[in-house]
């Protein structure tokens, strides 16, 4: 159960301590990748809460979204269109939607449990 969290902490520690430098022109890709990762993560949590979670979909979506977002940004840079803005927009909107859905599900569950406790 705690393995994913240990992995997260290890990842953070690795990123902070190794001091890997990324050229400045790639920082855009990195930020879009972070955004995509967050989006997929919250999507996964939402799916789990809605009981439609599939690990394959989640893991493949996680990496694929990151790669797609980065390549979209790359394409945008080379075409002269700020496509990464589109990615930011899409991911941002979806992020908020996902969080909203998660919040609503959690709220329903919480109230349902409260009612159950009151009944019993």
């Amino acid at each position: 159960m705690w393995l994913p969290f240990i992995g997260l902490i290890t990842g953070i520690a690795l990123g902070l301590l190794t001091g890997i430098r990324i050229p400045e022109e790639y920082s855009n890709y990195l930020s879009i990748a972070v955004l995509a990762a967050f989006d997929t993560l919250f999507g996964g949590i939402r799916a789990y809460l809605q009981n439609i979670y599939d690990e394959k979909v989640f893991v493949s979506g996680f990496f694929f979204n990151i790669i797609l977002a980065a390549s979209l940004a790359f394409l945008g840079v080379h075409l002269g269109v700020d496509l990464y803005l589109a990615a930011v927009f899409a991911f941002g909107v979806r992020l908020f939607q996902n969080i909203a859905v998660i919040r609503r599900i959690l709220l329903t569950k919480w109230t349902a449990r409260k009612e159950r406790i009151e009944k019993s």
Partner: protein
Amino acid sequence: MNRIKVKGHHYLLSLVGLFLGFIIALSYHLTQIENEKPKMTDKQYEQTLALRNQLIDQEKANRMLQMELKQKQDKVQKNEKELAKEARIFSSLVEDTEKYRLFLGKVKVKGKGVKVTLSDGAYDPKEDNVNHYLVHEHHVFKVVNELYISGAAAVAVNGTRLTSHSYIVCNGPVITVDGVPYPAPFVITAIGDPEVLASSLNLTGGVKDQLVNDDIIFKLEKADNIIFDPILGG
């Protein structure tokens, strides 16, 4: 907690967690680094660029000027060498000139020397010819010539300095030196090495002996400080 039970493989999820953590940390790190850098506006950037270009131009100009300076220095060195050579020639010329001026009597001369006094001999009743004990021009000549031969730089008779075209004439009771009559005694002063001059005059059978033989009173003294003024209008 029981409901939140992950079905499937934990390691895949931990891989996802690892990756997520990694990129988040990296992004955070990168942003920190970017924030640490001084923000530069376009104007500042342009200014920096212009200043850098200016600096480069200046350095180029500096290098050119330094090369030019080196060339000039080489030239100066060459000139200095030539000048030194010329100066050497000039200094030897100046020395020569000094010497010639000295001989010509154009400069003031000061130095050690000798002083020869020639006086007429005492009256001798046995001698019927007065000329036998008077100082004659040839006596003076002898002394003067001997002094010149022994290396005297300048010679004067009774204070009149002799030059290459001076004349000394016996004119009755007086001797005329360059038109100025002088009576006896005659004082001949010479500048030069006193030892050499004195010993050459004192040579056995030399000038002194000859003069003494002619009944002339010959007095020789060494002087430390003889001064001759330059001859005017010579």
